[in-house]
């Protein structure tokens, strides 16, 4: 019977072209608006590292005091003193300090010009903690961290640019005039949101081309290429800066079990209490240890305009559906005589439900196809509303294509519930008498 009802549905689409066009447009525009905004929301709200997001934790610790922070929330970065103290305590399975730097990559070939590249200074645990995908070699070792070794990990694009894609593990890369030994080459990796560096990127960035040990970067007095907030102006010189109350470092820990998390949180709180006792902090310990999802949520990584536009577009879809309900009601009730005849000839109410819901489904398919075209245009136009780094994340991939069609069909069928119920209530006797 499905194919029969489908035939009837397609025939019905042709019966009132104007009414059909209105319904298809209502569904198409409604679905396109919601799917376009959803494509942005999905890109900004997704879990960037779902396989490990529950065991990776960012550390926050208030080094500024309640009068210098908003709503009691510690800032999203740490001072050098705090980050290194917590790192050296080794209270997590893995830990890394991270901060962004900018380096000049100088090719061996003097004919080629140096280029300024984004880099991250991090610990050796950075790579296994974040499941960074290597295509050659691997990360540097803990020993390299401790020896402040001049080692580096580069991305595929950097490797292609410097070495034409050839194996480069063991070769040297010249950064700011200093040679670093390459230990590994990774994919052009930049999970979105860029969870480990929300402090500097707001969550969306293209990532870095080069990674070097944190210890070596500090040795080289490489200042942060990101945000640096100081509660008081630091004294002159790098050593004074490191001892200052300026915050510029992220500290991430891998804590596999709840017990690990509780113990780590207690330790950080204890550390803050110790700082209070020592007279450095004149306030009670105020710390946060958040996993990736909570951290992104706390930092409001999803742009408010993305959430608002999603809500508005879903409202628009509801309005379109209400219109569709009215149009379907008009379309179905005009066919009351046909319903009467079908009931007289043996159609049960269930048959009428099936026929008209499938007919609504065919309208949904047509609306979905229109919605798909409009969603494609909408995704192309996302850059007109959202910043470029967010707009480029919105794509019309197979999942969104399928979702658009499914939403259109489901929305049409839902919109058809009431009109179909009314159609199934048609009293055949009255219809046949009135004819």
């Amino acid at each position, binding site marked *: 019977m499905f194919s029969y009802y489908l035939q009837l549905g397609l025939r019905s689409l042709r019966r009132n072209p104007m009414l059909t066009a209105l319904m298809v447009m209502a569904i198409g525009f409604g679905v396109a608006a919601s799917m376009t905004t959803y494509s942005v929301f999905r890109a900004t709200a997704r879990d960037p590292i779902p396989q490990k997001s529950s065991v990776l934790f960012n550390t926050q610790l208030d080094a500024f005091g309640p009068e210098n922070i908003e709503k009691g929330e510690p800032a999203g970065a740490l001072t050098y003193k705090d980050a290194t103290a917590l790192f050296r305590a080794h209270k997590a399975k893995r830990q890394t300090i991270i901060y962004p730097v900018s380096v000049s990559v100088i090719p061996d070939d003097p004919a080629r010009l140096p280029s300024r590249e984004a880099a991250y200074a991090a610990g050796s645990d950075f790579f296994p903690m974040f499941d960074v995908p290597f295509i050659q070699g691997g990360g540097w070792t803990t020993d390299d961290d401790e020896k402040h070794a001049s080692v580096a990990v580069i991305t595929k694009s950097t490797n292609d640019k410097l070495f034409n894609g050839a194996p480069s593990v063991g070769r040297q890369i010249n950064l700011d005039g200093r040679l670093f030994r390459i230990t590994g080459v990774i994919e052009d990796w930049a999970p979105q949101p860029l969870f480990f560096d929300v402090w500097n990127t707001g969550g969306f960035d293209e990532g870095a081309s080069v990674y070097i040990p944190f210890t070596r970067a500090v040795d080289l007095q490489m200042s942060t290429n990101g945000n640096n907030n100081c509660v008081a102006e630091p004294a002159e010189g790098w050593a004074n800066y490191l001892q200052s109350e300026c915050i510029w470092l992220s500290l991430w820990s891998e804590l596999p079990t709840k017990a690990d998390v509780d113990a780590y949180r207690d330790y950080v709180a204890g550390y803050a209490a110790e700082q209070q006792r020592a007279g450095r902090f004149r306030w009670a310990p105020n710390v946060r240890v958040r996993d990736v999802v909570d951290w992104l949520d706390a930092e409001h990584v999803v742009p408010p305009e993305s959430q608002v536009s999603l809500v508005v577009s879903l409202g628009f879809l509801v309005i379109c559906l209400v219109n569709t309900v009215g149009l379907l009601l008009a379309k179905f009730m005009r066919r009351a005589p046909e319903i009467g005849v*079908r009931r007289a000839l*043996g159609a049960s109410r269930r048959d009428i439900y099936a026929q008209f819901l499938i007919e609504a489904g065919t309208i949904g398919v047509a609306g979905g196809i229109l919605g798909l075209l409009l969603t494609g245009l909408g995704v192309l136009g996302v850059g007109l509303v959202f910043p470029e780094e967010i707009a480029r994340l919105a794509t019309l991939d197979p999942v969104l294509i399928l979702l658009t069609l499914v939403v259109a069909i489901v929305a049409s069928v839902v919109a058809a519930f009431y009109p179909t119920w009314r159609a199934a209530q048609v009293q055949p006797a009255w219809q046949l008498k009135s004819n």
Partner: protein
Amino acid sequence: MLKMTHLAKVYRTEVVETYALRDFNIDVKEGEFVAVTGPSGSGKTTFLTIAGLLETFTGGHYHLDGVEVSQLDDNARSRIRNEKIGFIFQAFNLIPDLNVFDNVEVPLRYRGMKAAERKQRIMDALERVGLASRAKHYPAELSGGQQQRVAIARALAGSPRLLLADEPTGNLDTQMARGVMELLEEIHREGATIVMVTHDPELAARAQRNVHVIDGQVVDLAEEPRFHAHAHVANS
């Protein structure tokens, strides 16, 4: 085949109760051709819609082919309509978007019949009413008489045991009406049970038996001299 005992149909509003049928009794035997006559508003069409399970009744009993139908749910009633009853309406009630073939196919679709058998039955039914060559035509392309013959083919295609006809010639001219009536008589001769509601005394006279309805009740024709005088009804 069709037996109603003390059947009542009441339409209720907040302020008034209207009896469409009251203490209605009828017994139609298998193979009979019964004409139900009566003035407008007498309840004969209500009787027909209840007989065809298109409407429920308020009281009394109705046995169709030995089955008490009052307790049946919508699915069971629909199945009985589909398998045992054929309808012929005054206004033909063909579905305008479907061609002749597809119109005749409708009841067979609800029976879940295979395509080959459906096609065979449809063409047989259309042959029977002389419209096999018009299978691809749409109702609007046919005359009134042809449309009614399509409706009869639709009613016959499912081989129902009971044909219910409501003023089957009411919308036809004399010549077309005669053709349709001859077709019904032929179907009856082949064994079908037919119950026909009509205003037309001439048509009623061609049935085996007449049942006269006034004010929702079957009445004895001997007590209705006006009708008797005008109708030339043949009682058997």
